[in-house]
């Protein structure tokens, strides 16, 4: 029997809208779940997904991808990657798996919501495959690190992180709950697939795959590339949804979702990818600075995508670009100084050559962030290890759930952005974080940051040990310097001299 070509049957087969008779349309597709914003269903039916596939095609291709990924995994069991790789690279892997693996399961739930409540049949169809994709991503990124658990229990955090109260895990949960767990189908299409995936995860995965290949970790490179091929397909769910909203007079609502989505993604991204690229990646493997990368992908490419869709740049665009110069440097200092509170061992990335590189990429770095590292290096060399560790909590932003931090040294610009709301004072890292809160205070007001919990007496005993217990960090898991401070020896009797420009 001759089979029809896909394009001869696709449109009619995936048009699964019908007229319900046992329940009302509003009961079948409640606004709170669809997020249709009052745009009637027939307007949504013009939604045209740019990437079309059928279930048999999907299964055949995914089967091949999985066969490839699992054969690489078999090679991993025999490789000495774990023993031979730079500890900074191993730290990137641990941070990545803990922060991402279970987030993929969360993304699966979000795709499922679009598959059920998407107002456009095309969206529901794409999201069904997206749901299967995200399940695959979670399982792959749990299975690969599992190989290393017997050698290093920090790898166990690939699964454990999201079940803990570790601060980075709280930040990731808060962000992902906001962007896609506690959102309607339409909002998920915009915030998860458009803002987060098109804007940021594309780059996180492309950048990481390139870095992994550079570092000689072909297992991780092929795992990440395999995942990325799924992402680049289902990330296209959001674009046509934005087109429908804009064509039907809902640009303002669409713009707000995009602006909140990018603001939140940017914070998490600068913490994870910013510190990985500019500090944890061994110097000889760095191709671009994080800032160069952001300027190329976010300013060069994503900006074009926004304009082409008929959206405006977010109001805070210039402020965000200004942050490319400092925010991730501040987060790096935070994760290194509060290293016992991590599930990975942060690399300082602080050899004299690293500092020359930072100065070249970020002129003025040595006079600002470098001043702080000078004090830390002096303490390490003088054996005052206790002064390189914290004895209190950083103030945490009530939006990002990350430390409120900025530029130290010359150029000191650290500031609180407080907001009084219904008798409680909230503290934010920037105008941008405070603005996000103000868009929907009822959504955010009841959340307690780690510091709020500490002050409410939930962390006992109220000291670093109590905090580590609260964060579920067991001995053998808590972070320490990735290179066991060996890098500091380069400065013994040889203080850092800034290279002449």
């Amino acid at each position: 029997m001759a089979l029809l070509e896909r394009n001869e049957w696709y449109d009619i087969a995936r048009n699964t809208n019908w007229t319900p008779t046992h329940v009302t349309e509003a009961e079948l597709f409640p606004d709170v779940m669809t997020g249709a914003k009052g745009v009637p269903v027939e307007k949504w039916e013009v939604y045209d997904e740019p990437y079309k596939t059928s279930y048999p095609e999907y299964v055949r291709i995914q089967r091949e991808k999985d066969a490839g990924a699992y054969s690489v995994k078999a090679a991993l069991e025999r490789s000495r990657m774990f023993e031979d790789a730079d500890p900074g690279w191993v730290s990137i892997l641990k941070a990545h798996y803990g922060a991402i693996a279970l987030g993929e399961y969360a993304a699966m739930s979000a795709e499922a919501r679009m598959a059920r409540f998407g107002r456009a049949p095309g969206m529901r169809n794409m999201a069904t495959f997206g749901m299967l994709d995200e399940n695959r991503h979670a399982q792959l990124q749990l299975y690969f690190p599992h190989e290393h658990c017997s050698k290093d229990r920090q790898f166990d955090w690939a699964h454990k992180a999201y079940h803990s109260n570790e601060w980075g895990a709280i930040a990731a949960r808060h962000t992902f709950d906001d962007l896609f767990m506690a959102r309607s189908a339409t909002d998920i299409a915009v915030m998860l697939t458009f803002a987060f995936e098109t804007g940021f995860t594309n780059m996180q995965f492309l950048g990481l795959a390139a870095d992994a290949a550079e570092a000689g970790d072909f297992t991780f490179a092929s795992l990440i590339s395999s995942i990325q091929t799924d992402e680049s397909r289902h990330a296209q769910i959001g674009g046509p949804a934005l087109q429908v909203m804009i064509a039907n007079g809902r640009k303002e609502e669409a713009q707000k979702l995009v602006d909140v989505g990018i603001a939140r993604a940017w914070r998490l991204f600068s913490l994870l990818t910013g510190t990985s690229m500019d500090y944890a990646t061994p110097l000889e493997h760095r191709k671009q600075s994080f800032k160069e990368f952001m300027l190329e992908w976010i300013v060069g490419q994503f900006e074009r995508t926004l304009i082409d869709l008929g959206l405006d740049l977010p109001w805070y665009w210039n402020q965000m670009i200004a942050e490319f110069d400092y925010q991730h440097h501040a987060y790096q200092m935070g994760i290194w100084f509060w290293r016992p509170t991590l599930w990975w061992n942060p690399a300082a990335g602080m050899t004299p050559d690293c500092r020359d590189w930072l100065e070249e990429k970020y002129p003025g770095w040595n006079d600002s962030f470098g001043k702080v590292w000078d004090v830390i290096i002096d303490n390490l060399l003088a054996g005052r290890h206790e002064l390189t560790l914290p004895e209190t909590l950083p103030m945490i932003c009530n939006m990002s759930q990350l430390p409120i931090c900025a530029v130290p040294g010359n150029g000191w610009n650290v500031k609180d952005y407080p907001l009084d709301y219904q008798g409680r004072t909230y503290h934010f890292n920037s105008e941008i974080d405070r603005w996000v809160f103000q868009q929907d205070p009822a959504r955010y007001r009841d959340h307690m940051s780690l510091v709020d919990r500490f002050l409410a007496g939930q962390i006992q005993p109220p000291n670093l040990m109590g905090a580590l217990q609260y964060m579920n960090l067991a001995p053998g898991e808590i972070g320490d310097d990735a290179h066991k401070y060996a890098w500091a020896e380069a400065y013994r009797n040889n203080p850092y001299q800034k290279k002449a420009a």
Partner: protein
Amino acid sequence: MAAFPMISNFQYDFLLQLVAVDTENTMDEVAAAAAYHSVGRRVAPQPGKVVRVRRQGDTEFFPRHAKLGETGIKPMETVEFIFTEA
């Protein structure tokens, strides 16, 4: 006597920190409590200088011997700690 949490924004440091003080503390004592978590850890000491205390955004410092309870500073307010000539 009452335990008093405040937010320290210490000049030249890179972040805000939680600092525990007491309503009976003078501004010099509050400054010392904040310095404990910044100076010598991430901020180089400045011998001969005095660390003065002011509200975020203010230019005027509180008198060095003023007691915290008398200043009107609220719990969990962000306070700036600035190096000045003695």
